[in-house]
């Protein structure tokens, strides 16, 4: 049976400016789409970068590959500094299930494995593999799959995992992990996200326009893998020019055969609105279902993949090209030639900006990602990574710096704009007051940080930052509470164990005494003298036990923890009483420790102990500490003499 690809325009009625004549009416079907709550319509600014076709960015002299370009554990390097490597060679393996490997985007030599600035909102450095390219771009040996339809699921998943593919829409979730659903046919709906709802970004648009065949191949592989009942390709109606191309490309594949059941494939268009490209939002638009809070789309039988990811899957399976490049939009008014570039991962941002005629003087900030969810870069040397869909270089007039925030007047514009139906103004108040329970009660966990609330806020309040900080606070509190609970358990267990050991000791002692008593009784008839000695011994023993008990009752002197605590208490009291004396005491204790260490060393030397070196080191350290303590003692004196002068 021939695949029947049902092409749909929806809603072809009032909302979208679609010309239905463009599609053959015989294969048209009306599909109901749903609306999401809220959303905004920021200026799209997409045409600037769509003037040209996708260009190759070329091979920069140096590639910087961060080991964590995805969500999950960082990859582990498997090359050494100085290794010659080939294009496509794996240079870092995945660590655990939620992780992906990293491959060399071009041939060359590993020159460093060190901390470098990476694209991250913190602006911190992270471990990167640095490759000096040789310009030859020599490939490793490649083994593409001839006929993917004959491959079983695990083989395909293995290829996807080994190719280092992580979601390319922005979050970077390991694709192999996301596609690894337990049972066949568990997934009813495969959603492909071609929404690209953020302003400025056109990398997916360019991909759909120019590489529809590859997208279709990727979708076919996904169909083979997941065997869905329907495949929905969601496209916003500002990209209608790509629909026909996608539909004809999809017709090249027999999806019924691939998914082994009747499979509907549709390109669904819907009105442009930010943030309809969020995974949860797109699922609601296309299926009317909401992903329950705290669960995954897979629980509804839905898997959502980005179109760029589909192309990466096709490349990996059919051409054995791991994920070593991606399409990145370079745009903004501070670049002369906005365009889409096919960029090798690890290419420094400054290299790309140069190619597009970057005017640094007019630029006011550099954003990786779009203007709604992207983060500001603090360094132009950071590389492009698997999730970098856009580099935005705006001028001050284009994206002005935020003015000072005014007070919140609870106008409610934010609640109108929130796609998660939250009450952003309330969350803001609670975040300000760090009322974590109230925040949870108002479902801050369901905030997708899309920024629609901040966009509409007339008071210019950086709401998203409040939510991010509040979420971090909640995470930290949860972690602390968990850790405290665990520590408490371990502390209680230890106390119990110590008590038990003590009881066992007592019991053993009693048993010994009883034995001795019995023995003395036996021999008592024979030797009264011995009996007297035994009795004396027993008395001594009893006294000892008594004394020990008293001691234990007093302060548990024999427990090292108690001892340390007592010491600390005394020290704290002294310190509080007189800081100068406390410093003096520190010097004294350092001296005492040094002396102790020296005697230990002498003992060790006498015994010719194996720990000689350790004790020597300890003596050395003791000296250093003593010197430091003495200095500390001397310093405040100087300060106290200085202070009156300066005042």
């Amino acid at each position: 049976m021939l695949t029947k690809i049902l092409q749909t325009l929806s809603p072809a009625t009032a909302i979208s400016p679609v010309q239905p004549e463009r599609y053959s009416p015989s294969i048209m079907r009306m599909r109901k789409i749903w609306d999401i709550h809220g959303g905004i319509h920021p200026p799209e600014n997409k045409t600037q970068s769509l003037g040209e076709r996708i260009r190759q960015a070329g091979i920069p002299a140096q590639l910087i590959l961060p080991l964590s370009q995805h969500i999950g554990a960082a990859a582990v390097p498997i090359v050494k500094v100085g290794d010659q490597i080939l294009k496509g060679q794996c240079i870092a393996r995945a660590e655990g299930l939620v992780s992906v490997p990293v491959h060399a985007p071009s041939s060359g030599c590993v020159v460093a494995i060190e901390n470098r600035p990476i694209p991250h909102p913190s602006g911190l450095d992270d471990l990167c593999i640095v490759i000096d390219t040789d310009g030859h771009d020599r490939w490793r040996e490649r083994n593409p799959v001839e006929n993917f339809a004959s491959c079983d699921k695990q083989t395909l998943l293995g290829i996807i995992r080994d190719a280092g593919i992580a979601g390319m829409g922005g979050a970077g979730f390991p694709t192999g992990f996301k596609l690894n659903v337990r049972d066949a046919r568990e997934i009813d709906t495969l959603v492909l996200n071609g929404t690209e709802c953020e302003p400025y970004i056109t990398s997916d648009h360019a991909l759909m326009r120019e590489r529809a065949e590859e997208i279709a191949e990727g979708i076919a592989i996904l169909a083979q893998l997941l065997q869905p009942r329907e495949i929905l390709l969601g496209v916003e109606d500002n990209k209608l020019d790509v629909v026909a191309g996608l539909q004809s490309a999809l017709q090249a594949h027999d999806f019924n055969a691939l998914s082994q059941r009747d499979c509907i494939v549709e390109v669904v268009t819907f009105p442009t609105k930010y943030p309809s490209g969020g995974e949860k939002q797109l699922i609601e638009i296309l299926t009317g279902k909401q992903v329950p809070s705290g669960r995954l789309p897979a629980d509804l039988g839905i898997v959502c993949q980005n179109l760029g990811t589909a192309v990466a899957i096709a490349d990996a399976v059919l051409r054995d090209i791991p994920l070593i490049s991606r399409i990145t939009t370079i745009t903004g008014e501070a670049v002369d030639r906005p365009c889409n570039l096919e960029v090798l991962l690890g290419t420094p941002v400054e290299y790309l900006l140069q190619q597009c005629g970057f005017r640094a003087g007019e630029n006011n900030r550099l954003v990786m990602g779009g203007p709604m969810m992207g983060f500001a870069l603090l360094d132009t040397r950071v590389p492009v990574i698997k999730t970098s869909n856009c580099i935005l270089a705006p001028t001050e007039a284009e994206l002005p710096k935020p003015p000072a925030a005014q007070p919140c007047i609870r106008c409610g514009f934010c609640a109108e704009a929130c796609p998660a139906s939250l009450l952003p103004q309330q969350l803001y108040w609670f975040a300000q007051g760090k009322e974590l329970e109230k925040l949870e009660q108002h479902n801050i966990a369901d905030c997708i940080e899309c920024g629609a609330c901040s966009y509409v806020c007339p008071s210019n309040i950086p709401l998203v930052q409040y939510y991010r900080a509040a979420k971090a606070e909640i995470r930290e509190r949860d972690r602390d509470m968990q850790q405290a609970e665990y520590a408490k358990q371990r502390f209680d267990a230890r106390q119990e164990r110590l008590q038990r050991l003590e009881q066992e000791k007592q019991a053993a002692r009693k048993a010994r005494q009883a034995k001795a008593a019995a023995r003395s009784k036996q021999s008592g008839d024979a030797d009264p003298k011995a009996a007297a000695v035994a009795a004396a011994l027993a008395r001594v023993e009893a006294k000892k036990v008594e004394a020990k008990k008293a001691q234990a009752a007093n302060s548990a002197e024999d427990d090292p923890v108690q001892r340390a605590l007592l010491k600390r208490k005394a020290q704290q009291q002294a310190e509080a009483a007189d800081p100068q004396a406390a410093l003096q005491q520190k010097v004294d204790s350092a001296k005492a420790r040094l002396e102790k260490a020296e005697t230990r060393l002498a003992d060790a030397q006498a015994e010719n102990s194996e720990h000689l070196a350790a004790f020597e080191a300890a003596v050395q350290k003791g000296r250093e500490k003593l010197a430091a303590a003495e200095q500390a003692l001397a310093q405040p004196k100087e300060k106290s003499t200085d202070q009156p002068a300066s005042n």
Partner: protein
Amino acid sequence: MIEFLFSHPIASALLALLLLGAAFGAVLGFGAISFKVEGDPIVDQINAILPQTQCGQCGYPGCKPYAEAIANGDAINKCPPGGDAGIHALADLLDVEPIALDDEHGVEDVRKVAYIREAECIGCTKCIQACPVDAILGAAKQMHTVIVSECTGCDLCVEPCPVDCIDMLPVETGTRAWSWNLPDAHQNPADIIASDRDKPRAA
């Protein structure tokens, strides 16, 4: 009797008060028995707020004893690891005014964990005995190591070490642990709520 009451209003008032007192006393007594709360949950609630580092900086041998002390009226500001947040939570629970951390017991610090420089460890087990949460692994004459995930950062193991090979290192803050802070109130005149600032910056 009734006549007596009518003619002596003071006596009747006293009698009424007496009877009322007896009636309400009975109700309260009955309530105390039938609505009795088992155990001493306030100690557990306080203990749940304390950070369970068992560090003893409060002067009590562990968090539970300090919780009991607080329940018996000790100050709530003796726990440096709990910090300001902990004091506020305790103040909330006990319905008292939050007070500043008592410096005598230490200052709030970043979270730290113990780290044993393993090359220098001589395997004396002294630190293992000192650890209140059994977070140090090792045996006599064997190198010891700290199980980082279990370490509460109490630093009680530092003192007993004869070769001084234990360091308290701050927990690493890489890109994964990094998070956004609340926007800086000083940059926004509108964000100042709690107290008046001395020198506001003009917008």
